[in-house]
């Protein structure tokens, strides 16, 4: 068997450029899979750690797809505070900004800058530690703050505003006191300001807020509290750590499925590439395969050799995919700001998938080779 494997291995180096093209065909598909999955895993890691730091519960309108579009009565603040285990209820308001520094802001619904208005005293509260951890210059909002904002690094760079500079948002001017770094969990486009400043300068529905941030007592069960809120008020949606996690997981599952689907298509293309290469190789070696049969090789011996050749091609392709994929994943991750994860499981999956492609791609050419007539060996050239 080792000898057959050795022949198979030597055979892939006969037509170097064709083998290299085949390696690449396999590598591209696997590379794509590696990059996509490493991103999904990276996003998952960051989301888990961010959500893990979130101690509170976000309460918003049941029917709203996002907090930004949610609108609920201010009056719930009182009602929510009375629920057992609730330490504090922080009203939150969002507002899409149309003008910064007297210039209209463009962008779609997803990257348009918005104001996130909150009670500065409550922001200071450790419950916002996840946000505070993201601060990379200056400080977060503090009790008694007014006329100040925290902005994302992107906004800071776009409008060239550093700490202490004044930023005009709509018609009002604010001093920048903190800059935070956006990542997969924090928006790239938020302007965080004290709620009083917000209400003074921007229109909002009287008696309405977008959402509440409910902070439980130390030791209280957040999941229990969110269940109680949803049970008591049909019109409200309560999302604690657990619910957020579920939401993120289902989103990531979809991403993962998309990644696998895209990769399957490229794997299919790779398999066709292998079949093509192997068929050509088998056809070129008609005489040689006939000779092997004439001197006593069985069909099985030949099938084994050709499938091994195909698997060797795909293993080399997998190794290339692993190297190039890791480089692309890390570079792209660095540019986008996601720490991508290339786990041992993923490496194993890439190899298993690659070998599978080689096996499947090798079957047809191998069977064809095994049926080669030994008489071919004696035919004149």
């Amino acid at each position: 068997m080792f000898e057959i494997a050795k022949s198979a291995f030597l055979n892939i180096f006969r037509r170097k450029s064709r083998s290299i093209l085949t390696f690449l065909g396999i590598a591209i598909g696997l590379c794509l899979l590696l990059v996509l999955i490493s991103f999904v895993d990276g996003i998952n890691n960051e989301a888990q750690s961010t959500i893990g730091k979130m101690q509170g519960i976000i309460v918003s309108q049941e029917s709203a797809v996002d907090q930004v579009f949610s609108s609920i009565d201010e009056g719930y603040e009182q009602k929510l505070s009375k629920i057992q285990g609730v330490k504090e209820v922080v009203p939150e308001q969002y507002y899409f900004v149309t003008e910064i520094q007297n210039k209209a802001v463009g962008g779609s619904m997803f990257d348009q800058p918005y104001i996130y208005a909150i009670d500065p005293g409550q922001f200071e509260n450790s419950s916002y530690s996840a946000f505070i951890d993201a601060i990379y210059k200056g400080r977060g909002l503090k009790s008694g703050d007014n006329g100040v904002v925290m902005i994302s690094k992107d906004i800071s760079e776009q409008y060239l505003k550093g700490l202490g500079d004044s930023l005009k948002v709509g018609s009002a001017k604010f001093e920048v006191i903190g800059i935070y770094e956006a990542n997969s969990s924090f928006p790239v486009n938020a302007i965080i300001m004290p709620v009083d400043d917000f209400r003074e300068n921007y229109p909002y529905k009287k008696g309405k807020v977008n959402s509440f941030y409910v902070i439980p007592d130390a030791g209280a069960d957040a999941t229990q509290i969110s269940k109680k809120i949803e049970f008591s008020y049909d019109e409200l949606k309560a999302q604690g750590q657990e619910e957020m996690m579920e939401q993120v997981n289902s989103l990531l599952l979809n991403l993962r499925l998309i990644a696998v689907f895209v990769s399957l298509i490229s794997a299919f293309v790779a398999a066709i590439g292998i079949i093509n290469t192997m068929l050509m190789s088998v056809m070129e070696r008609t005489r040689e395969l006939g000779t092997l049969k004439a001197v006593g090789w069985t069909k099985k011996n030949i099938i084994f050799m050709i499938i091994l050749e195909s698997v060797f091609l795909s293993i080399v392709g997998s190794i290339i995919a692993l190297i190039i994929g890791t480089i692309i994943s890390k570079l792209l991750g660095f540019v986008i700001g996601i720490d991508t994860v290339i786990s041992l499981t993923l490496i194993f999956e890439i190899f298993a998938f690659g070998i599978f492609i080689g096996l499947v791609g090798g079957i047809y050419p191998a069977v064809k080779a095994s049926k080669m007539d030994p008489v071919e060996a004696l035919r004149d050239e």
Partner: protein
Amino acid sequence: MIMVENIIQAKDVVKSYVLGETTVNALNGVSLDVKKSQIIMILGPSGSGKSTLLHILGALDHPTTGDVYIKGKKISELDDFSLAVFRRYYLGFVFQSFNLIPTLNVLENVLIPTIPDGKNEEKTQRAISLLKAVGMSHRLKHKPAELSGGERQRVSIARALINDPEIIFADEPTGNLDTKTGQSIVDLILKLRDKEKKTFVIVTHDPSLTKYADKIYHIRDGKISDIKGK
């Protein structure tokens, strides 16, 4: 019924091919016997059916009708697997264009027929001594492309002998060689018959080889037209 000294026996062998709507008989009722330790030559012009006969006698192909016995074994009763195993142990092949594997060196090429059984040291030693016997021991690690035609044919003869078969089939073994090199291959064949008691079935259209044959069959239009020798 099968006489022991007839190592190969062919009875009324017919081989026909269907070409479109007509049936062509490549062999049209050929019967012959091959005795052990003889050199048999099959001569005939191209298209006479001599190659087809070699394929059938060498258990590479089945006759359409008729029977072939090799060492008393009826070839038509063997399935693909048994035929492969049978060829491996009892038959050796020497081809006109040598058919060596270009990626393998001389020693590895000689060992090809042993690969299905797994390589072992004994076989490697045998391969080395066979290569010595054919005068190729100084080129064990060379690739076929680095050898001359005569050298390649020597390697292919060593390959045919590696499993110590009793019968060796050769299709124009000197066809691609110059006269001098061809003669050295003929000498090697004679030596193998005399010392190792090997049987040779050789297809050729080179009349100068016939003087070494124990028996000559002339083939014309799928039939034996003349037999010379005992």
